[in-house]
């Protein structure tokens, strides 16, 4: 986007505004004890000094705010700035803390915006509704953890589709995939978790595509072209003909696909 106005048309473009995105680690604060926080940060930095060298961080104090634990944000900022980390934003603070953060040159990231962004990443441009339950498991008890780990950890997202999946369409879900209509021949539905089809399944269904062997496929009328669980597959010809047009579940047992009537 060039911003040439007539006044500066002879000059080169001096500035440009462009949208850009980057991933920033978040420090999630679980305790208001500054010494404890300081020790933990230094311990963490010592483990991977290169990673944390001049790294921007987002300070997330949502946990403390919900528990109504008061935190001395000014001191916390001082403490973090004394390390190699560069605090750039605050999330989940109270109104006062937000004011202070803004004065200290941090921007305020709203939690709602984060959730919306997560949702839009999952949205697929067809007619399905993404029902998101972005569950962020909170297992780490250390006072600090980085956002990176959070992204990798289980974000279980199920997808519900209410319109027919037509021939040639491909659907993918990072969690379970629930189809409330039929799946046409020549369509392909894939899920990292389980697949449920409340209608005729005539296309291909692949559950546990990332290797989750305990995934299952459920359908009310099985006429599938191909079924697969964690890479173990069968095509129509290999399927037991007595199971055709029946409500079945399909699961994996000792590397073998078991098809059982429901």
């Amino acid at each position, binding site marked *: 986007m060039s911003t040439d106005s007539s006044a500066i048309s002879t000059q080169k473009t001096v500035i440009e505004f462009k949208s850009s995105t980057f991933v920033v680690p978040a420090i999630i604060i679980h305790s208001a004890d500054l010494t404890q926080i300081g020790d933990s940060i230094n311990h963490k930095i010592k483990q991977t000094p290169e990673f944390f060298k001049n790294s921007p961080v987002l300070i997330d104090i949502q946990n403390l705010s919900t528990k109504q634990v008061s935190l001395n944000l000014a001191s916390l900022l001082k403490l973090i700035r004394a390390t190699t980390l560069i605090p750039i934003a605050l999330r989940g603070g109270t109104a006062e803390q937000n004011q202070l953060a803004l004065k200290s040159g941090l921007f305020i990231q709203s939690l709602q915006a984060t959730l919306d962004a997560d949702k839009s990443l999952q949205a697929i441009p067809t*007619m399905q509704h993404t029902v998101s339950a972005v569950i962020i498991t909170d297992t780490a008890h250390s006072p600090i953890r980085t956002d990176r780990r959070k992204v990798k950890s289980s974000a279980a997202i199920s997808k519900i589709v209410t319109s027919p*999946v037509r021939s040639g369409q491909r659907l993918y879900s990072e969690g379970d995939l629930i189809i409330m209509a039929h799946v*046409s021949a*020549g369509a392909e539905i894939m899920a990292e978790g389980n697949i449920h089809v409340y209608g005729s399944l005539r296309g291909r269904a692949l559950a546990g595509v990332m290797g989750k062997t305990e995934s299952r496929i459920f359908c009310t009328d099985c006429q599938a072209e191909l079924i697969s669980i964690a890479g173990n597959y069968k095509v129509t010809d290999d399927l037991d003909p007595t199971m055709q047009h029946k409500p079945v579940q399909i699961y994996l047992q000792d590397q073998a696909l078991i098809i059982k009537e429901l």
Partner: protein
Amino acid sequence: MARIIVVTSGKGGVGKTTTSAAISMGLAKKGHKTAVIDFDVGLRNLDLIMGCERRVIYDLVNVINNEASLNQALIKDKRCDKLYILPASQTRDKDALTLEGVGKILEALSEDFEYIICDSPAGIEKGAHLAMYFADDAFVVTNPEVASVRDSDRMLGILASKSRRAENNEEPIREYLLLSRYSPERVKLGEMLSVEDVQEILSLNLLGVIPESKSVLNASNAGTPVILDEKSDAGQAYADIIDRYLGVNKPHRFIEEEKKGLFNKLFRGK
């Protein structure tokens, strides 16, 4: 604002152009100002079926390239003054069409037409994509055989994901099924899929069944939309389709085997 209807199928030879000609004439006869556009650039046929091939001077591609105005290219039908035809170019190919060009034409037509019928080419490539991209309604023409049904299913998937309405997250295109070349006798013998078989696969709103009929070929050869042949079964089937589309509740016909010679009950008071 005009309602834009695409007549599409995926597969070729199922009766898209026949249907486009019939429904555009049907809507115009009901008093709605209607334009019908041939998107089959390179395989121009609509003008033949509409019987206006000798009056084609400019075409769709000329208008897109600003070589002619829309009014110069539109051909007014001689039988019905509410109907206009925008023919395709026979000397170009589908790459001559552009999204912006088609969008502009449809926008301009929307200003003084009530219905715009887009006659889609076969296939799912550029011509078919542009024909359906701006649509509000889709008439999916299907023959009662597996390949046609499969292709229609594929087309429905594209309608649901690649149209302007889908891309802008608007209300989806309304999809209607037109089952053409239907022969109850052959269904009975098990040589043809039945209406129920097709509906089981496509689950669509059935707008009408058009029986296999000699009158269709005769009408095409004569350059008359078959809907004008009010005595023929196919003509009546299309008339029913127009009524149903305009909201009149009519029972479906031509699904069961009928004794020949009994279609003379003329019900139209025109």
